[in-house]
């Protein structure tokens, strides 16, 4: 099986959105009597049939606990589970499969890193740099880590387009900078950060780099060796996989130095009533029975992506974004938040003076699913001086027709407000 999506496999078929849509059974339904237009992909993506099948086949045919193999079924489940790990390894181009740690998702992964570093690495006076555009999941764990260790949380600002203010970021870096934790793509603004450069700058002062890949992973190829970050984390459910499974990637030495987050079964090597020694990577971080079906489902999602024209999908999402911006400009009372040069198809906006929640409700009545509110980025909303936005976020299965439907629905919503 070819598993890498970094080097595109020769495709015999070009990207065709109509064909792609047939792979996602949920999309073919009505909401309040109207065809569903699912534009909440930044919250979670829908699942292709192959992922749904992988889950049910696992439970129907292969369910057993892993790494406890006294019987064939357990061996088989273990094999599928470890194959899934290899699949993720190749998908993000990690050097070794033991650098792939299964987690519940991005949030747990960041907590594992922050909590471990607070214990083993951070000391009073150290500085942790995050940015204004971080999700709460990449703010609060660091706040707690700072409180526990006596370190200081420093926030790198953004410019008016919603891009990281690089000159200021560089001036914030100094010998006290212990950690730089930033998002790859902003879940609210769609900004794609220049992670390679962020990491490169952080390395000059010896800081550990942690990249929140939750929004990036489902939209573009990620190569962790090229980015050269110490840690990269993401969730399976934003990558067309199941909920409750995520990935913590770390450089080998960083993972070796990081203390375990949870203790119990599987993660130990020897246990007496006095003490325990830790198992090797990756098991040191995987206490208890893992989400076996989730890992296998995520692996099926990666296989799915490897089987389509990924470059074509990326170009398609880009077209949707541009079409969206074009229609927004035609509607003079739409204010866009996040106009970065390098941006993903996450479209955050306000319609006139209307409250985002009203707009969301009126769109829902017309079959259009968006998210409204602060998108778990309250500090960013405070910085922008707004209570929240309406967010339409696109994925590879959305169509230009759906973009047009969004704007027709917004025009109708306006008549109410």
């Amino acid at each position, binding site marked *: 099986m070819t598993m890498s999506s970094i080097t595109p496999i020769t495709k015999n078929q070009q990207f065709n959105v109509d064909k792609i849509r047939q792979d996602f059974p949920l999309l073919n339904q009505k909401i*309040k009597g109207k065809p569903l237009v699912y534009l909440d992909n930044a919250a979670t993506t829908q699942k292709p049939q192959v992922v749904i099948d992988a889950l049910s086949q696992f439970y129907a045919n292969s369910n057993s606990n892993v790494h406890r193999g006294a019987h064939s079924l357990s061996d088989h489940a273990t094999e599928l589970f470890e194959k899934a790990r290899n699949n993720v390894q190749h998908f993000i181009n990690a050097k070794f499969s033991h650098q792939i740690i299964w987690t519940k998702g991005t949030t747990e992964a960041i907590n594992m890193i922050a909590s471990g570093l607070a214990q083993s690495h951070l000391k009073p006076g150290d500085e942790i740099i995050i940015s204004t555009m971080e999700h709460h999941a990449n703010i609060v764990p660091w706040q707690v880590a700072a409180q526990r260790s006596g370190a200081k949380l420093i926030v790198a600002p953004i410019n008016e387009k919603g891009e990281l203010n690089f000159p200021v970021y560089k001036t914030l870096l100094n010998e006290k900078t212990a950690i730089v934790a930033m998002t790859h793509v902003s879940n609210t603004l769609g900004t794609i950060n220049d992670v390679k450069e962020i990491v490169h700058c952080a390395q000059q002062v010896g800081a550990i780099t942690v990249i929140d890949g939750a929004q990036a992973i489902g939209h573009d190829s990620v190569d962790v060796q090229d980015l050269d970050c110490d840690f990269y984390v993401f969730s399976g459910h934003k990558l067309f996989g199941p909920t409750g499974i995520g990935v913590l990637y770390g450089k080998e030495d960083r993972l070796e130095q990081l203390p375990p987050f949870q203790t119990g079964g599987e993660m130990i090597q020897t246990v007496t009533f006095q003490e325990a020694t830790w198992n090797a990577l990756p098991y040191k971080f995987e206490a208890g029975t893992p989400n076996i079906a989730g890992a296998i489902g995520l692996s099926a999602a990666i296989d799915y992506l490897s089987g389509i024209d990924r470059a074509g999908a990326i170009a398609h999402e880009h077209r949707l974004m541009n079409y969206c911006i074009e229609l927004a400009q035609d509607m003079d009372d739409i204010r866009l938040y996040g106009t970065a040069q390098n941006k993903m198809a996450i479209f955050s906006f306000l319609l006139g003076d*209307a*409250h*985002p*929640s*009203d707009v*969301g*409700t*009126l769109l829902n*009545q017309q079959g259009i699913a968006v998210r*409204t*509110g*602060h998108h778990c980025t309250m500090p960013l909303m405070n910085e922008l001086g707004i*209570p*929240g936005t309406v967010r339409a976020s696109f994925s590879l299965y959305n169509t230009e027709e759906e973009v047009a439907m969004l704007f027709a629905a917004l025009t109708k919503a306006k008549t*109410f*407000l």
Partner: protein
Amino acid sequence: MNKLAIPALSNGPFGTEIKSTDIADTLSFFDDWEDRYRYIIDLGKELTTLPTSCRTDENLIIGCQSQVWLVCEYDKTNNLLFMAVDSEALIVKGLAAIVLSAFNKKTPQQITDFNIDAFFTDIDLFNHLSSMRGNGLRAMVSKILYLAKNYG
């Protein structure tokens, strides 16, 4: 009537001129969602203006997508609870007005006796509890019931 600390609370039609049964009747007339939502938004506009001084953290009910301010006062002489609500979102404001049509200017006993879930099912607007959690209305109902039990 006993004098209220916030006199504005005795104004407004909800609970008296506009009762929960009136709203249920009107909503049942509409065939399409557009009429229903225009009506809900109009109901919100009939709410008593809440003095800005009442927009305190104490009165705030935070939802994920929008927030609601609820002020409640107990008139001991007449054994009635007076309330007023506000929200920045028009639809939430209208929905909050609907809640007031059931609870405002009622005795604590009437409030706790009222079957709010049956009412919500009847008007078919709150079919998703999660959306009520999101807009703070479920928390608003809980707070009113809590206050009614305290005074009852």
